[in-house]
């Protein structure tokens, strides 16, 4: 007798979320901050776009990187832009990085029971001109860091950053402060490594370098496979 497959009842529920991949990274230096992201937008086994960066410029001194579900990334950045304008109109000044971070925490928590599926990292300069990085979870918990990786290849990037910037798990090494040139090279190197092993990361790397002079953007190619 032929064996028939019996799987039982199966429910195909509609999911309001999709996973569009992408990795973001931010590093804070003494007088600079770097926010970098890959530019691949995927869904399942397909690539929607090879030129969809995940860094969004908020102010002259603040850039946010958002990865996860692209629909929520777009809406969230629109909401943040609107709130920045409202603050500017009410208070006659631009929001500082710390203020944007605190505000984003409450925006994310307002959707505590139907979260924005977005992993955010804010990079910018604080009020003293020092580099600042704020990393978030999808429901709004956040803290200030020196460096943070988020998104699909974060588990590959974070340990390398812990070792090279945080000097973790090494003995007898001199803790040299991070220069801007070294930081940019490190960011390029870690993304090249991530593109090798993570299918959702690749195509190109967009780096935003924030200094008191303003924000500079650099795009370098990554593996396209």
């Amino acid at each position: 007798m032929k064996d028939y497959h019996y799987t039982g009842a199966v429910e195909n529920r509609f999911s309001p979320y999709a996973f569009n991949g992408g990795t973001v990274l931010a590093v804070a230096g003494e007088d600079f901050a770097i926010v970098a992201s890959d530019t691949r937008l995927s869904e399942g086994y397909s690539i929607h776009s090879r030129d969809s960066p995940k860094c969004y410029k908020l102010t002259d001194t603040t850039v946010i990187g958002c990865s996860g579900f692209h629909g929520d990334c777009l809406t969230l950045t629109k909401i943040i832009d609107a709130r920045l304008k409202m603050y500017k109109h009410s208070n006659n000044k631009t929001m500082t990085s710390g203020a944007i971070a605190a505000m984003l925490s409450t925006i994310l928590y307002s959707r505590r029971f139907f979260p924005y599926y977005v992993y955010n990292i804010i990079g910018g300069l604080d009020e003293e001109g020092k580099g600042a990085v704020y990393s978030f979870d999808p429901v709004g918990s956040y803290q200030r860091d020196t460096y943070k990786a988020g998104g699909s290849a974060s588990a590959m990037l974070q340990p390398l950053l812990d070792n090279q910037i945080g000097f973790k798990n090494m003995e007898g090494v001199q803790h040299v402060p991070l220069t801007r040139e070294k930081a940019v090279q490190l960011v390029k190197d870690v993304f090249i490594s991530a593109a090798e092993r993570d299918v959702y990361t690749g195509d190109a790397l967009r780096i935003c370098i924030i200094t008191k002079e303003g924000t500079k953007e650099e795009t370098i190619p990554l593996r396209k496979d």
Partner: protein
Amino acid sequence: SNDVNKVIEINPYLLGTMSGSAADCQYWERLLAKECRLYRLRNNHRISVAAASKLLCNMMLGYKGMGLSVGSMVCGWDKEGPGLYYVDENGTRLSGRMFSTGCGNGYAYGVVDSGYREDMTVEEAYELGCRGIAHATHRDAYSGGVVNMYHMQEDGWIKVCKEDVSQLIHRYKEGMF
């Protein structure tokens, strides 16, 4: 993340701890900070630890059953002296001399319960607190990183130290097997 600070500085004379969901604890304790500030402005004296912890407790009860995860200790100093309350997402609110929360709390209770004395000095208490956390992180898979230590005094809290757990365990190794 390795060096998350699980002590939330509500204001210079009130501290809250974070276990469960980081976002829930951060949000509700920040809201508590707002309410404590409003209380001070309206009543012209600082809020008591009992009242502050009850505010947090009632916030939890408003969302009971909806899946919040908050295991927090509210610590401060008011007219009655030092105060410590444990508050969680079910609305439990307990006053006590010592608590431990989170998934490693059993390990910490073991260490702190055996070392606690009513007549401890401040230095002995610092050491006991560090040991409790260090041993809990050693055995609990979900705990680790650093020990953030605060001391609540009559005129506010001070941050005592931020020590890496792996360094601490090395120091305590003498007493271990």
